[in-house]
Each structure stands twice: as structure tokens, then as C-alpha cells.
């Protein structure tokens, strides 16, 4: 899932300082599961903001709503009757949801209440580990199901480098070396030959804004054509 963390409270206060009436918009999907921007987090943030603005002698009127998904136009439409009442929208969705909200209501300032950090797994309650950088050419098939793009600190395709330290990455004894793990897993599976050939220079796919069209589908503007 996509994981995010609430921004430092002071930063949110600063973003909102010029607004008197703000709608806080949560998202019921990834950010709710990772405890950053679901219904509960919206309620907590609003009560903290309410109190802080009162103390600062600059009261704010806050509304709250949590959509099923902010990355889905259908759910964003639900807000159409409400947004006019507010000076600004404070989104607790991931970066994708925040932008889609801003795109749907371009006349309103849309502000982020979270920092989105990536595609991660839930290792225990409240603890997430990044696993994918969406490189668009997945190599997990020959790396034993361990992503070197994400898990190797240098994103090497022909690791491990010379910095591997007792199975840890050179950057931190707490950080396992991705290539050490890849080697271990492939060795156990008898697939070490997978990494004996050189992986040649990568043609990066993420250097331009990407779009994706599934087979049999078209861009919306082409549909009528």
C-alpha cells in the first residue's frame, strides 16, 4: 500500500494560517490503513487545530469528511456541494489523492497534511517498510523476490558492493544489505546462476511523467474519436 505520515503540526499550522474556514478531507484507503489520514486521524487533527488556533487568538472553523478514495473521481464528486463553503481544503490523502482533489476543485487552495513516503508493507502495527519504487520494469523474477532498486542503498543492479558489512548495508548496521539477502535466497533456492550474468545499464522509465493504458483501453479524449 501507499504509506504516509502526518506532517509536523507546526507546518500544518503555517499552511493554514491565512484561512478561517477549512475542510479536512481524509481518505479511507491506504492512508487509513497506515494510520495517517483516515477518519480517526481527521478527527484528531481537527481537534488539535481547533485548540491551537483558539489559543493563538485566531479561531478556525473546521469541517471534516473522509472519502472512500481520493484517487477516484467518483468519490471526489461527493464534495461538490460542500467545497464552496470553505476557504481551503486540507487533504490527508497520499500525494496522488491530494493532487486529484486539487485537480477536481481547481478554484480552491488544496493543502497537504501528510508527507507521502512510498509503497510499503505493514511489518507490525504502525511500522512500515518500503518495498517498491515503481520502476516500471520489475526485476524481482531474477532477484529472489527482493527489490534491489528499493532495498539497496545505491540501487545497484549488479551488487553487492564492497561495503557489505556482516550482512548489513554500509550505510547502517541496522539495515540489511539487499544484495546479501538476494544472494542468500537465491543460493538456498539453487538459483545463483540468475545473478552471474551482467545486468546492463538500465533504461530508466521514471524520468518523465508516466501514463498507463491497459490493453483494450484508450485515453478518455480518444474515446469519441
Amino acid at each position, binding site marked *: 500500500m501507499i504509506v504516509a505520515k502526518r506532517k509536523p503540526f507546526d507546518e500544518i499550522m503555517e499552511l493554514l494560517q491565512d484561512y478561517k474556514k477549512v475542510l479536512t478531507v481524509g481518505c479511507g484507503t491506504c492512508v487509513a490503513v497506515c494510520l495517517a489520514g483516515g477518519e480517526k486521524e481527521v478527527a484528531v487533527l481537527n481537534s488539535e487545530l481547533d485548540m491551537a488556533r483558539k489559543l493563538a487568538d485566531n479561531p478556525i472553523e473546521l469541517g471534516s469528511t473522509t472519502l472512500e478514495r481520493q484517487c477516484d473521481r467518483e468519490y471526489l464528486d461527493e464534495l461538490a456541494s460542500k467545497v464552496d463553503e470553505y476557504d481551503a481544503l486540507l487533504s490527508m490523502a497520499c500525494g496522488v489523492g491530494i493532487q486529484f482533489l486539487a485537480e477536481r476543485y481547481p478554484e480552491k487552495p488544496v493543502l497537504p497534511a501528510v508527507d507521502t513516503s512510498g509503497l510499503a508493507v505493514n511489518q507490525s502495527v504502525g511500522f512500515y517498510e518500503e518495498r517498491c519504487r515503481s520502476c516500471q520494469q520489475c526485476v524481482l523474477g531474477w532477484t529472489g523476490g527482493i527489490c534491489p532498486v528499493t532495498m539497496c542503498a545505491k540501487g545497484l543492479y549488479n551488487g553487492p558492493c564492497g561495503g557489505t558489512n556482516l550482512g548489513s548495508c554500509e*550505510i547502517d548496521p541496522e539495515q540489511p544489505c539487499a544484495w546479501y539477502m538476494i544472494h542468500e535466497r537465491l543460493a538456498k533456492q539453487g538459483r545463483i546462476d540468475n545473478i552471474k550474468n551482467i545486468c546492463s545499464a538500465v533504461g530508466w522509465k521514471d524520468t518523465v511523467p508516466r501514463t498507463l493504458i491497459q490493453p483494450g483501453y484508450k485515453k478518455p479524449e480518444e474515446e469519441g474519436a
Partner: protein
Amino acid sequence: MSTDNGYKSGSNLEKVLKAGHFAFTGELGPPRGTGAEEVLEKAQHLKGVVDAVNITDNQTAVVRMSSWAASLLLVQEGLEPNFQMVCRDRNRLAMQGDILGVYTHGVRNMLCLSGDHAKFGDHPDAKGVFDIDSMQLIAMVKQMRDEGKFLGGADIEHPPKIFIGAAANPFAEPYDWRPHRLSKKIDAGVDFIQTQCIYNMDRFREFIKVANDMGLTEKCYILAGVTPMKSVGMAKYMKNKVPGMDVPDDTIKRLQGAEKGKVAAEGIKMACEQIEEFKEMDGVHGVHLMAIEWEHKVPEIAEQAKVLPRPQVD
């Protein structure tokens, strides 16, 4: 493919190795500023004492005078640089541009490295480039040299003829993978290897034995990395703080046992003993002496290690 004279690059290092001499290379770290004198002063100690001088590239991710610029200073002084290039700081365009540039100015050797992570250095928040990795860099330099083509496929006018080097660390896990990694570097096109500093001789002997058995040491030249210990503190620091470094307790004990004021001399003695063993070791073709900030000691070490005078190969 080779140049008309049978050499891939015609560098002094290549000539020395090809003639079957035991090579001896040194290292020089460029200054944290613009002082050319500092480079030249260090270079003077190495002149005539080593076959080529590695010029480090923002080593340990700390900003220094660029390795190409310091390499050119050496060329002007009549020393042969081994131009180091890390994948951390440049993308493939900048790398290829720099390779053309240094070659134009007389650089003939290159060492292709991944580079330490920026986290260690003086700009820990810098974004690492790693557009290509060290393996891909080796392959790119080989393609430029032997096929006369850029990575993107276009032809190069007057391709750069570079003697291609890389590093190997026999002391980083997984140990049994390290010879295979060396083999990959050979497949990528490496001509010579300079190893990580060696202290654990048992592990190194083991590594070379496997490399010999795999036939790897016939396909590229291996220069064993040696760094003399200056003090007990340095040995402990290397052991505990430098990732991928293997300093056995015996090394530290021997330094601790040295008389007061004689620790550095003991360190040099240990390095010379190592060099003596490497001269006799099958599959080792030379020594790379990394006496960082100790360049003035190199002539003395070379003398004591009996690697002087350096061979002249035409």
C-alpha cells in the same frame, strides 16, 4: 581489440604488467580546496617510485578537487594517473564526457567504482546518482574503447583507449560470491583489479586460490591492496568503523606490542612483509599501496619492500 602497438591503452601500468613485472601503484587524495601545490608536493614523493598513481574521486563522499583535474596536474608533472570514477556523482552523460576529456589530456588508466554512499561524507543529504553501477561503467568504458561507441550507440570520433581497472573486496560477505563478482567484472571488460586493503591474509589467500582455480587471475591482473597502519588507533578505527574492512585482532596486537614511538615503523614492517608474500603469490601481479596522507613515506616503504627501481618498458 588493441592499439597498433599491441596494447589496449599503452599506459605505463599496462606495459609494466604486460611485460610480466610486479606492478607497484600508489594513491593520492586531491585537496579540499584549490591548492595545486599540495597535489604537486604529494606527487613529488611518488615520482619514479610507483607505476601509476590513483587519484581518488570525492573519496568517502567528501568533496575534493575533482579527480580529473588532479589527474591532469599529474600528467603535467610527468606522472601517470589512474583516474578514479565513482557512480555516485555523475550520470552516464557526465561520465562519458569526462572520459573523453581526460583521455584528450593524456589519462590512460581508469578505476571504475560504485563509490561510498553519500551518508558517510560531508553532504550526507545529497542524492546519489547511480545512473549506472560499477559493473555497467566497466562495460561502458570497454565499449567506448573497443567498439568506438558511446553507451547510447553513436560512434565516437577517436575513441579513448583506456586501461580499465576496478576494485574487489574479498573481505565483504558473501565471501563465496566474491570470486563470482570478480568474474562478472572480467566479463564486463576489466583489465586490472586493485583490491580492498588486505590485513586478513588467510582470507585473501583463500580468495586468490579460488580465483586461480576459476582461471580468473589469467584473465586480469590483480594488484593486492596494502595500507600500512600508522597507529593502534588507526587499526581500531579501520576494524570498527570502516564497512567492508577486515582487521584481525593479531594485527592490532602486534602494533600494540611495538615499542613506544615505533608503532608506525612496525606498521610499515608489516606492510613490507605482506608485499614480500604477494611477490611470491600465484595470481597476484602487483601491489597497490594506499598510504593516504602519508605520501612522503612511500619512497621509504618502496625501498624497504624492495620494489625499486621501477621498470621502464618501452
